[in-house]
């Protein structure tokens, strides 16, 4: 194991999959000559050439659709959105073409495509550039959605996504690109299955269910709670769809108290689905009502103080944990 950044981990995943399979190509805005708006594709043009690392004009609908069409005849496109906020311009391709093709054609055309890029609120980018799209996409049958929070998960999930025979969205955490973590050495194949959560920290008093940018937040809060003798278990979903019910239920059976901390909006958010499934399947395990901590239900304000008020934070999460623990 060695320590690398989330950005480097993604870069390694891309390079390894491009190396392994000649049908894989990377396409998007600024991915080639500019080396990626967030430098995730650094060096790939030099290594793989312009046939496989392809710059596009600013035409999200056009190049997302191009990717779906290429996937119909067996290529395995990796389509980068400069941010998933811009994927909304390509919503029709991602939601109406990619996941419907397999059904509409009676199973003749599966679409092995990966859509990837940063997702979730970053810092003072305002309402148009701060979308957390996971609940939008996870609600669509035929799509798979993963949300890595660590360099290791970023690498392993992206590689798995590229090999999947269905459209997979890898929603990278914009604020975590420079974060570091331990990852297997490059000569060791690292594949992390979709639909498998991971307990990032064992605990006994409360389960904090989180993903993407809320994972480091939950870990930080868990350390603080430890000082107050509250032992929090941190369950990182890693994939939103498929959802790892077993990992969630196992943790609930252990702690009997649940807080869900999500980076999207409260109405029809990821936490609403998780909450529903817990009460439906393991209601008797609960010792307190579940609390969700999410964004406030407003478009993201630019103002820094207001933005902080909209986002989940340590104070909100600690308050929620204390409430479910009746502490």
């Amino acid at each position, binding site marked *: 194991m060695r320590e690398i950044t989330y950005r480097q981990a993604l870069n390694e995943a891309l390079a390894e999959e491009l190396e392994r399979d000649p049908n894989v190509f990377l396409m998007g805005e600024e991915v080639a000559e500019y080396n990626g708006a967030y430098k995730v594709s650094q060096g790939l043009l030099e290594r793989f050439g312009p046939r496989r690392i392809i710059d596009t004009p600013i035409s999200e609908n056009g190049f997302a659709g*191009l990717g779906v069409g290429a996937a119909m005849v067996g290529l395995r496109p990796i389509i980068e959105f400069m941010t998933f906020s811009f994927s909304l311009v390509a919503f029709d391709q991602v939601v109406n*073409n990619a996941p419907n093709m397999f059904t509409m054609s009676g199973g003749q055309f599966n679409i092995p495509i990966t859509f990837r890029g940063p997702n979730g609120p970053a810092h003072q980018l305002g309402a148009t550039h701060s979308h957390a799209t996971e609940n939008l996409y996870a609600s669509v049958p035929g799509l798979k959605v993963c949300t890595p929070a660590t360099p290791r998960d970023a690498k392993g999930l992206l590689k798995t996504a590229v090999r999947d025979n269905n459209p997979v969205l890898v929603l990278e955490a914009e604020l975590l690109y420079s974060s570091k973590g331990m990852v297997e050495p490059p000569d060791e194949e690292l594949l992390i299955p979709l639909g498998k959560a991971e307990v990032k920290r064992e605990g006994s008093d409360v389960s904090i269910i989180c993903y993407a940018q809320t994972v480091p937040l939950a870990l930080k809060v868990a350390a603080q709670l430890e000082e107050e003798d509250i032992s929090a278990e941190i369950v990182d979903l890693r994939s939103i769809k498929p959802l790892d019910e077993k990992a969630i239920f196992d943790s609930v059976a252990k702690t009997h108290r649940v807080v869900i901390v999500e980076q999207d909006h409260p109405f029809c958010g990821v936490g609403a689905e998780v909450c529903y499934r817990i009460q439906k399947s393991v209601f008797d395990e609960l010792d307190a009502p579940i609390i969700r901590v999410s964004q406030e239900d407003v478009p993201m304000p630019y103002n820094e103080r207001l933005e902080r008020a909209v986002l989940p934070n340590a104070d909100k999460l600690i308050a929620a944990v204390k409430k479910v623990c009746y502490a």
Partner: protein
Amino acid sequence: MTAMQPGEQRDEVEMLSLMLLIRRFEERASQQYQAQKIGGFCHLYIGQEAVVAGAVAAVRDDDYIITAYRDHAHALARGTSANACMAELFGKETGCSRGLGGSMHFFNRQNHMYGGHAIVAAHVPLAVGLAFAIKYRDEDRVTLCFFGDGAINQGSFHEALNLAALYKLPIVFICENNLFAMGTSVKRSTSLKQIVDRAEGYDIPGEIVDGMNFREVRDKIAEIVSSIRKESHPAFVEVQTYRYRGHSMSDPASYRTKQELEKYRLDDPITRLRAQLTREGKLTHEQFDLLDKRAKETVLASVKFAEESPQPPLDKLYDYTYANGANS
């Protein structure tokens, strides 16, 4: 239809036979729709037969074709059986999309028919992706992308044309201009005097073709495709045609006059090709009647086939959501 080699021309009597099959299929689909055997939306191709027949006659069987929702003819033209097409309209498991696609979503992977797409112009980027794959693999195939005049004002159309021109992809954009996007005439929807000028904006060569004339469609597209095979590039063809029926089964087409419809009916593509062949001594009246009789019989048999085919099984409902993998 038999497989065709590069450079070979398809037999014109065979293509006339295809046009008859398309017409008789659509007439029967209309009747079955009215009898409520067919659900959802149903868009008929009657009047436009020479467009798809001419286009497929100009290319090889391994070239890619993709179209919008008025797609029954394109599936038939690519050798999908009338049985599989009618069964799809009936929503049966024996349909060309197992009854899961319906009228607007016909597919035939084996014969390189890539759908059947119902969101206007959303398939034009897909077509560019098919062409991208051809170039990526250094093949000499060509993609034919069919769409209606309504598609040319949609953003995805413009993005796709720009990408095709930028990457020099082997694709023919075939605009089947039947003068109406649903009920809105081209005059009321498009700022240009002629649709073909859209291509010029992307530095793509464009042509206007008489879509009621099978030979003109075939020869023009063959010429373009031959140029593309020599050196990959996109091209645009505005094929001027006319649909005799409304936009869909529920449209009485009151936005146009009887005189206009009659004018086009007099220029019917089937009548025209038949007259050409008869004049040249390649087809007798008896032979034509026999072709038409066969087309009617094939279609009638397809209705029986569709009626007798099984429904898609309920226990397979989740089998076509994800490939090689369980649902969440």
